[in-house]
């Protein structure tokens, strides 16, 4: 059984135990396997900035860490909530690049969690004239976005 199937079954068990009517839909992207939980009960996971979804993501990643290895990334979403947030984050990062460029001053973004920082770093890496760097030693870090002269 593939790790994606195992995680999907785990998520089905969890949402059923919670009493939520949500159905997983799997999408493979270049970057990760996304399991999107779809249904009208999604609000429970998405409210308060998606803290329930975040918890579920951490617990699934921890439980299946060994099977996932270093190369497989799994992203758990609910009604596309995370996908929308990821797109906003990327837009914000690119907006700060243009502000850094026009002002000549670095811009700060965050504090962000590791998942969010990864999205920002990948977005910035697409622009050869811009760099990004994480500052701090806690779980949440600020990302400094600079442009080359």
């Amino acid at each position, binding site marked *: 059984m593939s790790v994606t199937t195992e995680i999907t079954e785990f998520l089905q068990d969890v949402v*059923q*135990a*919670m009493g939520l*009517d949500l159905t997983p839909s799997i999408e493979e992207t270049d970057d990760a396997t996304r399991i999107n939980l779809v249904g009208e009960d999604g609000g429970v996971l998405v409210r308060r900035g998606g803290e329930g979804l975040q918890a579920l993501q951490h*617990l699934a990643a921890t439980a299946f860490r060994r099977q996932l290895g270093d190369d497989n990334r799994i992203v758990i979403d609910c009604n596309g909530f995370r996908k929308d947030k990821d797109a906003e984050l990327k837009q914000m990062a690119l907006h700060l690049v243009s502000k850094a460029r026009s002002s000549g001053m670095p811009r700060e973004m965050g504090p962000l969690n590791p998942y969010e920082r990864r999205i920002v770093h990948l977005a910035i890496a697409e622009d050869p004239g811009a760099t990004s760097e994480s500052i701090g030693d806690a*779980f949440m870090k600020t990302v400094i976005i600079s442009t080359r002269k």
Partner: protein
Amino acid sequence: MSVTNSGDVSPIRAVLEVVVRALVDRPESVRVTETERRGMSVLELRTSPEDMGKIIGRQGRTAAALRTLVAVTAEKHGKRAQLDIKD
């Protein structure tokens, strides 16, 4: 899909058991009890001592995620709940 649980296991306890059993090396040692205290569900979680570190996680992140999931499930069922991790 049926959303009722078999027997008298509450959704909060059911969720905790499913998730904790997936996290540990010795799922057969996982014990969850649930009691009512002043309108609040109190869940006590016990695992084999070797599995305690997995339940707590680095900087307590796994324990925090378990508490969030317990709270979210309780909220869905109009309740409040507290998780005690017994070591």
